[in-house]
């Protein structure tokens, strides 16, 4: 097993989410004034999941079903309220590619910044450097600050760095829809390649064709609960036929 998720729940307090940040005055006031009732809601409820080595598993569900929350917990961005998870390998989390790019820095500098943010060492980046800029098709502009890049170039560079990270476990959230058609195809091929090389992948997507194409197995989250876990065609069919 590469990913083991045990009884994970994530609770949010709604009123706190609205405020998101409290001021000092508000929290001092909270001590004296009767607390406004905080509505609790579960973004994830008692999720159990095991993913084996080399599996590519799709995650589908309506907005607010908890797909991204699950990915964020596995990426260690946020913590579960209850439950444990164990990951048996280097994790590459691509909730949003290119997070951490700095517009004032050159392409070259951003490769090292973003690469090490993902978890690569500098020597590893140096080793893959040529391949990264070749794949991204930005050789000519590598000494230019990326604020002068087109958005397409930006995304290509980000994806290229991420794709060369080669983690054992890949967590993807709708990042496939990047760049022009040509580059999209290249990305899809790269993902296939990663999946075929024994990488374990979780793929969150709203695009059922993409899920059917890449994942043999799919799980369906509904209002934070794991509604179905099985073969992709069966799960997708059930999901599309489901009317809440």
């Amino acid at each position: 097993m590469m990913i083991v998720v045990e009884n994970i729940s994530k609770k949010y307090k709604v009123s706190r989410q609205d405020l998101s940040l409290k001021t000092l005055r508000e929290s001092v006031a909270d001590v004296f004034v009767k607390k406004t009732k905080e509505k609790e809601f579960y973004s994830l409820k008692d999720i159990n999941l095991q993913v084996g080595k080399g599996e590519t598993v799709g995650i589908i569900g309506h907005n607010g079903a908890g797909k991204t929350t699950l990915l964020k917990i596995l990426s260690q961005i946020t913590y579960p309220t209850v439950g444990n998870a164990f990951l048996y390998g280097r994790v590459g989390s691509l909730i949003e590619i290119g997070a951490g790019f700095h517009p004032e820095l050159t392409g070259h500098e951003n490769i090292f910044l973003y690469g090490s943010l993902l978890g690569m060492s500098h020597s590893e980046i140096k080793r893959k450097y040529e391949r990264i800029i070749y794949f991204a098709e930005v050789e000519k502009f590598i000494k230019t600050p990326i604020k002068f890049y087109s958005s397409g170039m930006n995304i290509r560079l980000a994806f290229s760095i991420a794709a060369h990270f080669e983690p054992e476990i890949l967590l993807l959230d709708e990042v496939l829809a990047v760049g022009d058609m040509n580059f999209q195809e290249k990305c899809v091929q790269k993902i296939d390649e990663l999946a075929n090389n024994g990488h374990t992948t979780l793929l969150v997507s709203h695009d059922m064709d993409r899920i059917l194409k890449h994942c043999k197995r799919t799980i369906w989250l509904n209002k934070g609960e794991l509604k179905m876990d099985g073969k992709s065609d069966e799960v997708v069919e059930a999901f599309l036929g489901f009317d809440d």
Partner: protein
Amino acid sequence: MEDNLSKTLSLSSDKKTAMTSAENKPYIKIYPDKKWYDLDWKRMWRQRDLLKSFVLRDIRLRYRQTLLGVLWAIIQPLAPLLIFTLIFSRFFSEFNQGIPYAVFVFCGLVPWLYFSNAVNQSGNSLSHHSYLIGKIYFPRLFLPLSSIIAGGLDFLVGFGLLIFLLLFYGVGISVNILFVPFLWVLLGILALSIGALFASLSVVFRDVKNLLPFILQLGLFLTPVIYPSKALPESVQWITKINPLTGIIENMRAVLLGTDFAWTELGITLIWIACLSFIAMIVFVRVQKYTADYI
């Protein structure tokens, strides 16, 4: 021959099972609770190149976009030096054992500017990077820590100017200068503790961000930077005595100018550092868990 081969084969398969059992230890464990000391040390070591990247980024950004570039690192300490020398030099001459005021004040100004910039940058580091924190995991301590380290370049430039000033005024340099790195490390740890504390508090309370510049401004006057502690009336000398920066700044002067060592103050500084770093760690570990949810 065949026997040998099968032997190696079985050996290698033994090795393989041993390896897979080692692989069975999770690489990443996710629990709802973190131990109070768990800053994710292992991950910090594994991802140490990221710290380097952050430091390089901070340094590049500070100097690249400005017209005068690196000159700012020189102007920044020289401007207050000039102002303070013009205004205060005649007041404190009787306390200074014949040391020119410009040298005296610069010995305090260089560590103070480093400290206040470092606390300011690191104190805002989490809220500045809120976008990043919600998108990807990395050891969060790298954010305040990189500000502290990147500020070291300013300190080095300032220190170079200080040495120039010492020679210019004919004060000379003794072998005691070798203690400066030690004092600098103390200053860095102190700044990191306070900066990390402010960074985590400003995640939970918005106001803290506005409070910080005010506190730092006040700090300049409560620290013997522009005046010697001895110049204060005795009834209020306790203020500089309990100030954690006094032990560093007074000893910086002792080391460079040959004034008396302030051992008591150094002890007080060490006690502050022990307490503050301990508290800062507990608070930071607690807060970093929720940072992505709050921001």
